[in-house]
């Protein structure tokens, strides 16, 4: 393959830098930094490192505004993963990352290598990966291509995670037509480390050896970062296939064990995984962090096949490789560890004081007087010489133009479905029928057909696995537990990207808080469109502003994440999707509270109050209602008080179960508490706005709590102390879900106080369960799911 071949068949008249995805302005920037023209190899190195994926050249000015400081933060943005201390000498490492475009081109391998890549980010820090959460978004489930993608991506996530032995404990699965040509595969990984083993991606100490271990370097994943991840693409283009990496989870498993053994034995000074940008990225990032450079012996890099061009070796994204910086006297010990795990291991260069990445072909020879202890052999030649910082911290930054859309609200076309107003979609429609339709809808039905394809219990830490709210994991050797959730509110984000991001943070943290855990920090995966389009960049900048505002208000640090732009296909851009991952800490994992009702006779309470607005809700989607500006807002101060209140209530032993009100609204939250426990409920809801808003609206900052009857008054008092509205809805019990509506004047003057303003919901649990259990399989036309055994 020549360099031009690698550029997806650009016309031969196209200048090389343009074919590689660089602009004229960027070529000038490269010339400025080198003081000369780059050669072709250097240009290829710049093209991957200055890609959006590696350089964050559009998002960097925005990301700098995020709050990153917080209690216990050991490592924050810029490292491979965020690390936060959890006491007992332990810390948790976590990060979320996207693998959207590779998964669109080759769903199985794209998703599999997405898992592999984020796991490497975790164990590179010295942490053993203990859990994966996958947040997946697809187009219309009735679409044949969507079904192909769902099948391949789910198999890929499972195929990789199951084999490496890291449980998949949670995530999201969302369908929206905007993702039809551009599915989202966001994978979050969590690891546990002893703080003393924290390892950074650095290259200190001139003269230290640069070691590459793991798989050999092949031609897969050439230009993955630049060709695939950083440009709008058409999903069916077979010329992009070579840009997708191929995963080998068996090698990854060996790489985990070998890397952790090297770290625990104190054999490495710095460690970096090879992901996007391959050897170019790993060498330049580690050197730049330490203010050093590297002399790289190209010939020493193990290859999978002969005849690879130097640029291919340097930018290949072959998977399951690691770069270690070690002291020369530890070479034998490092080789022995790698050999035990059956992993090839080669010294490929030296750390130098001169802060350049120099790539030499033809060999290096020892010279004790030279910088780094080696010099090029007499017959060798230099392929590239680039200041490390020019590739990384001093990469070009673009100040993109942001502009809100001209018209945020389109006039409805004649005959178009009505905008979401506060009423049930059709006169006379039974709220019970709406509830069943929601429970059976593709976005709210049980995810069991998907998560049963994952191993969720390996490593014996899973207290609460997928399917019932946030994941809860015990921390072996301590009484503690970790709680994790991923959430994104894209449909509100499409109306107001600031609000969408704020709601995403609020929901993810609330899901963690309702178990009793204290959220520790936030990782984020920002999935947006083409940043050169002012409207898309406006969405991104508004979402980052919302992310920052929400994290500041809730007192949480952003410890890292990933930006995925150009998520567009010929049919348009995706909904702006800020996927938020939150990890929380339980001091005593046995106190974790779940969303399922617990006992007959317990009192059901609703904390928080409904706000008007149905836009962006699953109810609006179900009713085919057009989006308008009518999305519920949020009071972040109330959200903070709500989360503090539920944690305090749980700590005081007042709470039997807690479930947040989100997709499908209060009615769905009640149905879930009932279905997941097998216990019914007899409730009455005062209609404050309209039956649709109160039953199915998704306004935030609400939790359905159950308490033992004798604790109800104490919990109500606690809520009022926190300045939160709270009302009793009725008792747990029976085998039916009953929700009566009590008018309070909002739906019309004719109703006297106390009269019904809509039919009650009155359904046997079996009917709810049937709708919920079969909805996803029906939507995807999969084989009907097996009946779920009780318990997990």
């Amino acid at each position, binding site marked *: 393959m020549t360099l031009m071949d690698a550029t997806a068949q650009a016309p031969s008249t196209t200048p090389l830098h343009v074919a590689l995805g660089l602009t004229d302005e960027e070529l000038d920037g490269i010339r400025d930094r080198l003081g000369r023209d780059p050669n072709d190899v250097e240009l290829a190195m710049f093209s991957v490192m200055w890609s959006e994926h590696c350089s964050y050249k559009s998002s960097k000015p925005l990301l700098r505004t995020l709050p990153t400081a917080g209690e216990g933060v050991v490592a924050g943005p810029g490292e491979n993963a965020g690390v936060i201390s959890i006491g007992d000498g332990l810390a948790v490492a976590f990060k979320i990352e996207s693998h959207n475009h590779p998964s669109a081109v080759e769903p199985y391998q794209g998703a599999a290598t997405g898992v592999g890549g984020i796991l490497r980010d975790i164990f590179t820090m010295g942490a053993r990966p203990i859990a994966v959460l996958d947040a997946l978004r697809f187009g219309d489930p009735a679409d044949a291509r969507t079904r192909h993608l769902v099948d391949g991506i789910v*198999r890929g996530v*499972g*195929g990789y995670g*199951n*084999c*490496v*032995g890291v449980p998949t404990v949670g995530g999201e699965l969302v369908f929206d037509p905007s993702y039809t040509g551009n599915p989202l595969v966001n994978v979050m990984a969590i690891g546990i480390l002893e703080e003393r083993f924290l390892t950074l991606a650095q290259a200190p100490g001139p003269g230290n050896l640069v070691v590459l271990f793991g798989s050999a370097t092949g031609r897969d994943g050439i230009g993955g970062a630049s060709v695939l991840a950083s440009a709008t693409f058409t999903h069916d283009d077979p010329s992009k296939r070579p840009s997708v990496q191929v995963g*080998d*989870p*068996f*090698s990854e*498993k*060996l790489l985990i064990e070998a890397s952790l053994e090297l770290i625990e034995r104190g054999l490495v000074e710095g460690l970096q995984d090879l992901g996007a940008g391959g050897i170019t990225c790993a060498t330049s990032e580690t050197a730049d962090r330490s203010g050093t450079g590297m002399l790289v012996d190209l010939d020493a890099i193990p290859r999978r096949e002969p005849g690879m061009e130097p640029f291919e070796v340097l930018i290949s994204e072959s998977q399951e490789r690691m770069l270690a910086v070690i002291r020369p006297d530890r070479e034998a010990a490092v080789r022995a560890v790698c050999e035990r*795990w*059956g992993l090839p291991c080669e010294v490929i260069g030296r750390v130098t004081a001169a802060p350049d990445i120099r790539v030499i072909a033809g060999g290096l020879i020892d010279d004790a007087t030279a910088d780094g202890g080696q010099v090029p052999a007499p017959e060798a030649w230099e392929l590239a010489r680039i200041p490390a910082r020019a590739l990384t911290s001093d990469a070009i930054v673009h100040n993109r133009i942001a502009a809100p859309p001209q018209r945020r609200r389109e006039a409805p076309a004649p005959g178009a479905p009505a905008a979401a107003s506060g009423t049930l979609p059709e006169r006379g429609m039974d709220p019970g029928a709406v509830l069943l339709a929601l429970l059976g809808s593709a976005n709210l039905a049980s995810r069991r057909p998907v*998560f*049963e*394809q*994952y*191993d*969720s*219990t*390996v*490593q*014996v*830490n*899973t*207290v609460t696995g997928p399917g019932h709210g946030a994941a809860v994991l*015990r921390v*072996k050797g301590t009484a503690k537990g970790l709680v994790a959730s991923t959430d994104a509110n894209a449909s509100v984000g499409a109306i107001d990207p600031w609000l969408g991001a704020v709601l995403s943070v609020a929901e993810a943290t609330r899901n963690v808080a309702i178990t009793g855990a204290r959220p520790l920090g936030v990782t984020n995966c920002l999935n947006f469109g083409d940043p050169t389009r002012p409207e898309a960049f406006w969405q991104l900048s508004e979402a980052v502003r919302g992310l920052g505002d929400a994290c500041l208000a809730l007192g949480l640090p952003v410890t890292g994440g990933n930006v995925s732009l150009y998520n567009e296909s010929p049919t348009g851009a995706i909904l702006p999707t800020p996927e938020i991952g939150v990890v929380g800490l339980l001091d005593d*994992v*046995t106190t974790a509270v779940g969303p399922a009702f617990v006992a007959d006779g317990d009192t059901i309470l609703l904390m928080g109050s409904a706000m008007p607005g149905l836009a962006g809700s699953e109810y609006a989607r179900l009713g085919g209602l057009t989006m308008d500006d009518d999305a519920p807002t949020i009071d972040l101060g109330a959200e903070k008080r709500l989360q503090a209140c539920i944690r305090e209530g749980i700590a005081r032993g007042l709470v039997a179960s807690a479930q947040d009100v989100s997709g499908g609204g209060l009615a769905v939250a009640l149905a879930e508490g009932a279905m997941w426990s097998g216990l019914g409920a007899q409730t009455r809801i005062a209609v404050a706005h309209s039956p649709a808003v109160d039953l199915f609206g998704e306004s935030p900052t609400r939790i359905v709590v159950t308490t033992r009857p004798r604790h109800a008054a104490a919990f109500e008092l606690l809520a009022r102390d926190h300045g939160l509205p709270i009302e009793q809805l009725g008792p747990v019990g029976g085998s039916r879900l009953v929700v009566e509506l009590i008018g309070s004047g909002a739906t019309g003057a004719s109703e006297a106080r106390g009269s019904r303003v809509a039919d009650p919901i009155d359904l046997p649990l079996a009917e709810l369960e049937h709708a919920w259990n079969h909805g996803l399989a029906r939507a995807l036309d999969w*084989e009907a799911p*097996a*009946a*779920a*055994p*009780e*318990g*997990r």
Partner: protein
Amino acid sequence: MTRIGVIVFPGSNCDRDTMHAITLAGAEPVELWHEHADLQGVAGIILPGGFAYGDYLRAGVIARFSPVMRSVAAFAAEGGLVLGICNGFQVLAEAGLVPGALLRNRGLRFLGRDVHIAVEQADSQFTSLTGPRRPLRLPIAHGEGCYFADPAMLDQLEANNQVLFRYVRADGSVAGDADDPANPNGSMRAIAGVRNAAGNVAGLMPHPERASEALLGSDDGFAIVRSFVESAAASVGAGDRGGVLVR
């Protein structure tokens, strides 16, 4: 303290979980690396779950040729107690140490869920502490767990009391062969675990080590782990391995 060996193949991923359960059961786990033939004098051996050598070709097919497996076969031939869990069961079946074969799941998908199994031989060395007859709830997590043997062999297994565990419904009734969700992988005669004719080597697809603590949802599997540890300890105490273990 009773020392129980846990084989670690490259790609084993339940080795640590199994060692954790052995520790909970009051025994000392000993890592047995696949390249070493020395069994370090352990009282019993567990082959853990995972994807030994990647299992790209067929589950367990490469692992059976590893140096440690020659020692395991010799240990088993002398009457030593050996248990294979999930991938460990697949390896034992490939090695011919337990009868039958594990095929791909009926649905051709990996399946991770809780199942119910019945203990068919309550007095075996693997089940002696499982208590009164009731279904045990254990997780499965496998893509190739469909137990297969020809009808004659199945009849022979039944006649010899070699079927140790069967998939059952929550009420304890035996799951059907096909299209019964209680038989998650389509195993013939709903077989979830078997032992060899001598009774000292067994394999099962569900994971007892993952159901060994109530905190994690079920401790039904812990009785299997404890049975194994106790039987292994007894075999050492008796000093004559073969005499104790072969029925």
